[in-house]
């Protein structure tokens, strides 16, 4: 086999592989991207019930209800403009607090309630997920530099 032939094989092989990888990526990106919406956007967009997405905002004060079975929890997520009811089954992360930022992933049921498959914990108590900060900005409830809503994230690992 000559050098030229070998190079040809290499190039063809790499092309085939790269092509299939691009195919995989395009396929995956179409189906697996998870969009993030604020409660106000959820209310405006009329998202179909089978669509998986994330919401974020503050856990409304006084909205957390634990059901008798101990593992079903209802709470409201708000961007201080619109609220959305969320149900989650399982243990909440350590950092889940009323009045604090939260991000949840899941889908809407037919009544417009958000059924969360996961509630995300961030590493730092003061850490406001950037998406939540944006959601609050969008709803006009964000005051730059006001510590009651937001403390800048500390360094974390």
């Amino acid at each position, binding site marked *: 086999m000559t*050098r030229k032939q070998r190079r040809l*094989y*290499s190039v063809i092989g790499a092309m085939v592989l790269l092509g299939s*990888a691009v195919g995989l990526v395009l396929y995956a990106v179409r189906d697996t991207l998870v969009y993030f919406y604020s409660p106000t956007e959820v209310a405006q967009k009329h998202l179909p019930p089978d669509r998986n997405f994330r919401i974020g905002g503050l856990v409304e004060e006084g909205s957390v209800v634990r059901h008798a079975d*101990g593992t079903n929890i209802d709470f409201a997520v708000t961007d201080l403009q619109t609220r959305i009811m969320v149900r989650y089954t399982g243990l909440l992360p350590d*950092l889940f607090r009323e009045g604090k930022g939260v991000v949840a992933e899941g889908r809407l049921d037919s009544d417009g309630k958000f059924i969360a498959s996961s509630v995300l914990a961030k590493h730092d108590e003061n850490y406001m997920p*950037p998406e939540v900060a944006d959601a609050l900005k969008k709803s006009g409830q964000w005051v730059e530099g006001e510590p009651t809503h937001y403390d800048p*994230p*500390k360094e974390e690992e």
Partner: protein
Amino acid sequence: MIIELGHFALILAFVLALAQASLPLIGAARGNAALMAVARPAAFGQLIFLLLAFAALMYGFVTSDFSVQVVAANSHSAKPMLYKIAGLWGNHEGSLLLWVLILAIFGAAVAGVGDNLPATLRARVLSVQAMIATGFLSFMLATSNPFTRLIPAPLDGAGLNPLLQDPGLAFHPPFLYLGYVGFSMAFSFAVAALIEGRVDPAWARWVRPWTLAAWCFLTIGIAMGSWWAYYELGWGGWWFWDPVENASFMPWLAGTALLHSAIVVEKRDALKSWTVLLAILTFSLSLLGTFIVRSGVLSSVHAFATDPARGVFILGFLVLVIGGSLTLYAIRAPILKGGGIFAPISREAALVVNNWLLATACATVLLGTLYPLLMDALSGGTDKVTVGAPYYNATFTPLMVPLMMMMALGPLMSWKRGDLAGVLSRLQFALGLSVLSMLVVWYLREEGPVLAVFGIGLGVWLIGGALTDLAERIKLFRAPFATSFARAVGLPRASWGAMLAHGGVGIVVLGITASTAWTEEKIILMQPGDEATVSGYVYRFIRAEQGPGPNYTALRGQFEVSKNGAPVVSLEPEARSYPTPPMDTTEAAIYPMLSGDLFAVIGNPQGDKGWSARLYFRPLQSWIWAGAIIMAIGGVISLSDRRHRVGAPRRAATPIGGAPAPLAAE
């Protein structure tokens, strides 16, 4: 005072780095031995001054000197000593100091043991190392100085994030950095070789030990990180495809590819320019990784906004390093002529395919990691997306399957021209074992899933392949046992290392497959005396009570676990509350067994309804880490091979300085 001395030492190290980055390079270009000779003492000096700076900051942390800003922000007087020390690198400024210190250690190592390197190559390598150091040191001095004073000093510190107060995590960053920074050696050698215009088997022999060492550290560092996530975050997850995790995984993938392509350069004098490119890319990904973790560019675009100077500096440095080295590559790579040619079925070809697959897999991870940033930028901030596990399952996993199928074939293939039919017939045993294991698993777990059954088969195939490789090399069953034993003893350590590493991958695959597919989980409310059964294990809840810890209070639960009436273990998970900074953490109780992990988490009491508990059985879970450790051990054994010992190899006929030395026996 000591803090100021540390600050001064840091500045001196920066000045030395500047000298080391420029003078030896000029010397090497002009053949001026005096200028080239600057590199060595400069590298040692840099190490000494950075050690002093590190010691000064350590002193600040150990004595809880809260007039130092990073100490005040990340330490607390009531913290156990281990975490006061670990607090040094648990923050942005301190971790950068650790980074440059490790860089200086590697630089001094080249200066110290690189006696057999041609003088110009060593001068250039050290000069490139110093350029990286210059970049980092100026970044630290300009935007992230760890020695900044805080006036007035607070009475006590803000404390280290309790989640990070964990022995596993205390040592996780140093290992990760040893890996990241270790790849800088491959990078420096690659850039130096491009400047020299010469890449040959000897070059690969110099680069391989450094790459291998870095790879071992990175493997352990990643394993530690995922182990920490597993037991500290308290819900049994161990890998999340989080940007920060991907940041360490991408250099690992590229580094693994580099490790393999360097073999081809060394043994066959082929794939040269590709290997040089990989060395550049691996370190570029390490840099990207450091910055993703340290700047928060990806998890939060707003990190740029909080300190624009830092963000701009980081971007500038990345552009300079990656752009500069790639430009050099584009100019110089064409002069690197390939040597040995090979057939499409050969060990070389198998390693080429290994490289394609690893590089492509790395690219899909990179794309997934950066995609949210791209979307955000392109849509002007309106489209917020996350790329999660489903993306990686659809892109990364399909690329790993052919890689692993080939992994058993490659080592049995001969160089230049291989015999596929012969190799396959020698792998009959591994194939049979793999099919048998799939049938057994299929029988035990009728419900599948099919992919998991296939995953088990793949893992067994890898382990069987590694065993076959060993059996072939020592002529097991084909020669008298004594002969086989003698051959096994005489087998190069590098061969043992490769087999262990490949077998380790098989063990990891088994662990991932079983724990992902067949974990059983129960989340329930329990009163003392209640029992719950998970995968045949009976968890009996004994009690839960509040108690103090060194710097926290904890709710301690107790579960007696038994199987078929026989007691197995008593698990005592905790829910801790730390006062500074105020935070709750979950300490899962885990009992690892060969067959799987028992895992219990206790939650807060729900009024009079009892305590919420999360109970798991995670089959083969600890195999993931055991496999990773075996991979790293394989790397270390390979590193102890005479041929790979750092600094041992010599160039066959050295054009500049140094006496010709015989090639190490192959």
